[in-house]
């Protein structure tokens, strides 16, 4: 009875807590360096615009699909993407090449895109700068002159994709000696070209390593590679509501060249500067002051909200399911199997499955967390009730207690130590798993962990990982304390 009361209070508090959605602009981004840099650039630009509007960063949100879905549902307002990606992944019309065609097609979906920001992040061929000068190489077609001696190091993906090497050969008729075209891991191609083992490699045109290894990109003079021009992508609602802000973002149109973008990526990946500093540098201002304490505070609230709400639901669903599993043998078997199977689905996959049902943002994250914490709760309820001496239940019936009274007066109190252990396990699992919620834009400690992982930035990872570990530890201690109030004194024999 006390246990139910305690859960009820927790639910009430959590459901009254603010869920967000005030007057504000939410900026999203994909989960790689360039995405973070452009997302941060957009956020800082919006913050500096007039009239001032609060800006929320949801940077590092996984794939195109998640971002587009977020834009669609209004979970984010604007994010940077590439024309080629929009045509292929969203419109499913890879033949669309021009920005105008793509803009028209997206407008039917209520999506607005800006003019290109100025650079094209596509496949490109790169040669060492010194080698280019020595051999007078400017375009891809120039490579044909060296067809007998040129040694290439191409990544597996580039070799296998139809829009990679096979199509390139067909278009340019380079006629490279197949014996000199090596397939290798993409990360190794830079080492290979730096050591002079190969002369030409495939790269992404804004890759930071181009500057690091002093490479020259060869011009695609036959326009072979599909165009991946960076643009701002926004919901038409945002554009209508915040015209001044949209204009501020559009001032970047045509102003970021490929070499600028390479430089920005290199500042983050190689010089290890923060994304905020790099974006501020481009804007010619200083980075907004990052108040680490208030940032961690906000993420703590988000994380607590995720864990608390999902846990409340898994308790409210899990305990009745556990009780049902005890009473109905066959159904019980089904319930236990189901909750065990959900536990085996990788968290990322589960999040992806839930996006079509719940959209993006907090809801799929809450649903996934709820499913994950269901098993410990159901199992604890089931085994906690099963371990009660059946004579107590029979005696209660003999005393004339109704089944409801037996449940609340006898079963739940006697099972409460097991229940609390199960809920404690569920909580600690949730605190860990909730870090993945950042991938669908639900915030929490996962934000610095995910961005730190993708930027290979350990201090940033720690600003999420340490608080998460502390929260798990605090939850453990809190449950010990809670046990003293919830578990009937008669069952609190010291272990």
């Amino acid at each position, binding site marked *: 009875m006390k246990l139910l009361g305690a859960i009820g209070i927790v639910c009430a508090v959590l459901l009254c807590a603010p869920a967000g959605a005030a007057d504000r602009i939410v900026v999203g981004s994909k989960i790689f360096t360039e995405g973070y840099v452009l997302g941060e650039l957009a956020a800082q630009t919006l913050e500096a615009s007039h009239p001032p509007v609060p800006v929320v960063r949801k940077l590092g949100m996984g794939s195109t699909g998640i971002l587009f879905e977020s834009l669609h549902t209004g979970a984010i307002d604007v994010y940077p993407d590439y024309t080629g990606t929009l045509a292929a992944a969203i419109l499913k019309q890879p033949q669309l090449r021009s920005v105008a065609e793509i803009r028209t097609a997206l407008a039917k979906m209520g999506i607005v895109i800006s003019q290109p920001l100025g650079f094209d992040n596509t496949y490109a061929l790169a040669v060492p700068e010194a080698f280019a000068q020595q051999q007078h190489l400017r375009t891809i077609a120039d490579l044909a002159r060296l067809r007998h001696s040129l040694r290439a190091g191409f990544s597996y993906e580039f070799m296998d994709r139809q829009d990679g090497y096979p199509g390139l050969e067909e278009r340019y008729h380079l006629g490279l000696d197949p014996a000199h075209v090596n397939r290798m891991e993409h990360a190794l191609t830079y080492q290979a070209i730096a050591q002079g083992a190969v002369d030409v490699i495939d790269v992404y045109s804004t890759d930071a390593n181009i500057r690091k290894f002093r490479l020259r990109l060869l011009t695609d003079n036959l326009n072979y590679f599909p165009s991946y021009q960076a643009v701002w992508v926004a919901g038409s609602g945002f554009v209508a509501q915040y015209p001044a802000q949209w204009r501020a973002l559009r001032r970047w149109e045509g102003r970021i060249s490929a070499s600028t973008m390479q430089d920005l990526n290199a500042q983050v990946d190689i010089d290890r500067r923060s994304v905020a500093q790099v974006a501020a540098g481009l804007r010619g201002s200083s980075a907004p002051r990052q108040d680490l304490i208030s940032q961690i505070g906000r993420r703590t609230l988000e994380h607590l909200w995720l864990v608390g709400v999902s846990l409340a639901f898994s308790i409210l669903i899990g305990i009745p399911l556990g009780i049902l599993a005890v009473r109905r043998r066959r159904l019980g078997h089904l319930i236990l199997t189901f909750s065990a199977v959900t536990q085996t689905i990788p968290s990322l996959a589960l999040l992806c499955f839930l996006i079509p049902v719940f959209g993006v943002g907090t809801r799929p994250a809450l649903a996934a967390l709820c499913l994950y914490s269901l098993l410990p709760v159901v199992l604890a309820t089931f085994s906690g009730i099963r371990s009660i001496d059946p004579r107590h239940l029979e*005696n209660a019936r*003999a*005393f*004339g*207690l109704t089944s409801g009274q037996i449940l609340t007066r*006898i079963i739940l109190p*006697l099972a409460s130590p097991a229940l609390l252990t199960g809920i404690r396990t569920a909580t600690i699992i949730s605190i860990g798993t909730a870090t993945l919620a950042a991938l669908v834009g639900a915030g929490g400690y996962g934000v610095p962990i995910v961005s730190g992982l993708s930027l290979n930035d350990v201090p940033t990872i720690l600003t999420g990982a340490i608080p998460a570990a502390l929260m798990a530890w605090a939850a453990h201690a809190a449950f010990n304390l809670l046990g003293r109030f919830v578990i*009937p004194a*008669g*069952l609190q024999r010291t272990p």
Partner: protein
Amino acid sequence: MLDLEHISKAFDGKQVLTDVSLSIPTGATCALIGSSGSGKTTLLRITLRLIGLDHGTVNVDGRPLSEFGPGAWADRIGYVPQDGGLFPHLTGEQNVTLVPRLRRWEPARIRARVAELQQLVALDSGVLQRFPHEMSGGQMQRVALMRAAMLDPAVMLLDEPMAALDPLIRSALQAELKTIFRRLGKTVLLVTHDLAEAAFLAECITLLHEGRVLQTGSYPELVLRPADPFVTAFIKAQRTLPDTAGPP
């Protein structure tokens, strides 16, 4: 007054009780005795209405079981389970007052009844504030008796009340139980496998064997005029009869 008339019960086609009748006059103490598998537990569970019966009737003070709602029936039968059966998460007092509280008795009425019964079963003050695991076996039995008597039932039903107690405490408590039964003035049905206990506490003994009543009578009657060779065999099998065994 408790009357069990012509009770039969089968589980999955296996006859467990066959035409069992048993009558206990108001205020009397009777023992239902038999070895394990004799059907005495089934009869007990039927009387407690935990399971149904195939044939026959159970009456309390002339009213059949079927006339009562489940709660009302439970209130007419004061049940003392084996080893007391106290709920481990409740204190002695919470155990004793559980049902009256659920029946929404006034707190003053509950307090008065607890005080009255505590005196009657001679329970030391303070024991009621303890949890079962902090009580001795004898204290648990007394608390269980109080709990059974709280609603002033017509019949008290005791299931192997002494089984878990060590022999010294057992004989002391047996003597006391007899006094308590007399003070309570209840109709008592004692279910036991111990003939000595039955002979000491009960005026009449019903011997159950393989689901049938072999004989009902006082202990001397069972010894002197056995109705069946098994009655004699059962009595002989109980090796340690005390010298004082027998009706008062």
